[in-house]
């Protein structure tokens, strides 16, 4: 395999990897706030694309505005889901909450099917179908959008986490919930904010990919499981690890297509998930145990 071909696979890996990274960030944010895996995370990805299509095709909004509506509406769905379902479980029992997210995932995809139909729905490319050449490899303009939006979201999230009072409160909540409460942090509000953000990140991924892949009511679970694998691979609860995990998973898939066969591409995430859980449950960037001071 030549260098150009290899670069082509690397670019593809980066593209898919950044999508997984966004979804993984959603898993990580909610896990940090609640200690729970949100199995509805993939549906936020689906809704991001679907609601953008709806705003663009059905409401007739211009594409940038439609994308904004899609992401904002999905964030709102995430917030309502937290207020209406997660928060209602008063004792916060993790197992019960996980079951609630599984149920939520089914409700969201069924509703999408009911409201938007069973067919695949397209969205135009953000700025046409052009491509640029990078050392001989082809880089589609939409891929640049995907990489750029991901980078923007990661930087924005970093800023929120490390440079704002809200982010500091969220981190405090992740370290020790009771400690956060006694210094005056409304931990329930932090959970709601986490769901809003996680939904927005998933939606952004769905929005950015839909012009390349189209979307449908049932695209959530596949991407959800990959984002989950990426979050586990990096080490749950750490945003940077989620991004690294996403990119690594994207690369592994790409490499597997290059050297094995594209048939096994979707199995890679599951193999990675199992391998990590067996051999290094704390993830590649995680510490060996979750200590609490």
């Amino acid at each position, binding site marked *: 395999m030549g260098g150009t071909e290899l670069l082509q696979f690397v670019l593809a890996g980066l593209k898919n990897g950044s999508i997984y990274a966004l979804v993984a960030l959603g898993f990580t944010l909610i896990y940090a706030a609640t200690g729970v895996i949100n199995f509805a995370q993939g549906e936020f990805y689906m809704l991001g694309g679907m609601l953008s299509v709806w705003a663009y095709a059905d409401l007739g909004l211009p594409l940038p505005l439609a994308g904004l509506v899609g992401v904002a509406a999905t964030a709102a769905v995430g917030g309502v889901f937290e207020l209406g379902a997660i928060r209602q479980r008063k004792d916060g029992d993790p197992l019960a909450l996980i079951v609630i997210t599984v149920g939520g995932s089914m409700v969201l995809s069924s509703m999408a099917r009911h409201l938007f139909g069973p067919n695949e729905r397209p969205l135009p490319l953000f700025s046409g179908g052009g491509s640029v050449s990078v050392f001989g490899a082809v880089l589609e303009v939409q891929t640049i959008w995907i990489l750029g939006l991901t980078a923007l979201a990661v930087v924005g999230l970093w800023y929120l986490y490390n440079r704002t009072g809200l982010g500091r*409160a969220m981190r405090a909540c992740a370290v020790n919930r*009771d400690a*956060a409460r*006694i210094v*005056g942090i409304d931990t329930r509000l932090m959970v709601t904010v986490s769901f809003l953000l996680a939904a927005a990140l998933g939606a952004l991924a769905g929005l950015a990919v839909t012009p390349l892949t189209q979307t449908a009511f049932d695209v959530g679970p596949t991407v959800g499981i990959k984002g989950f694998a990426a979050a586990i691979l990096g080490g749950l609860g750490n945003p940077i690890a989620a991004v690294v995990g996403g990119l690594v998973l994207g690369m592994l898939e790409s490499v597997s297509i290059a050297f094995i066969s594209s048939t096994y591409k979707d199995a890679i995430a599951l193999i990675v998930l199992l391998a990590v859980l067996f051999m290094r449950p704390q993830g590649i960037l995680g510490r060996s145990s979750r200590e609490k001071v």
Partner: protein
Amino acid sequence: MSSEPRTVLSVEGLHAGYGHVAVVRGIDMRVAEGELVTLIGANGAGKSTLLKALVGLVPPSAGTVRFLGEDITRMRPERAVRAGLALVPEGRMLFGPMSVEENLELGAQVTDRTQTVGSLERVFDLFPVLAERRSQTAATLSGGEQQMLAVARALMARPRLLLLDEPSLGLAPKVIKEIFGALRKLKDEGLTILLVEQDARLALKHSDRGYVMRTGSIALAGDAADLLEDDDVRLIYLGAWRGEGESS
């Protein structure tokens, strides 16, 4: 005592616990403004649970808690700290991966932002070592420094009542002395303090009054000096309460 000092905290018939197990069973107590009151008792007597119930970390199942005249029973912890109750919890509960300064700023988040600098100066004055360690993460501090940080973080909220749960636990005598010196200083400045302590002799020496807790209720109350002379209390110092601890 010529004029009756104002009551800061009054607790009546308080019950609290986990699930169906009541650990605190009918507590009556009162803390007046400017007092340092100690709560002593054997392990498992319910002291920590009582403190948690006061700030709302463990919801009371019966009884009332009044703070500065306001009924705060079942108030959520994030509201209680705004009302003026700050807890230095058992095990300190610091934000380990975050810096000393961040821990302190989190402690100050219920106060007006303009007060934060003044509050920081105050706690650095009280515990100068925290100023030296301000950019270090809390997890890297020694046990004594962590305890100081836990006290300092609670003070950042500018509380009217400071609740401390076992501040001497696991610390060297020199550090314990320093922490009790700080509490003394805070009391002299007029802060009202309710202290839970295993080391009853040490705590009572610094206190105005004391309560002895036994299997969830108050067994004995009185002036600290009297309690220090009490035969039963003397037995607790040795860790034995006539074997009744085992029956609970």
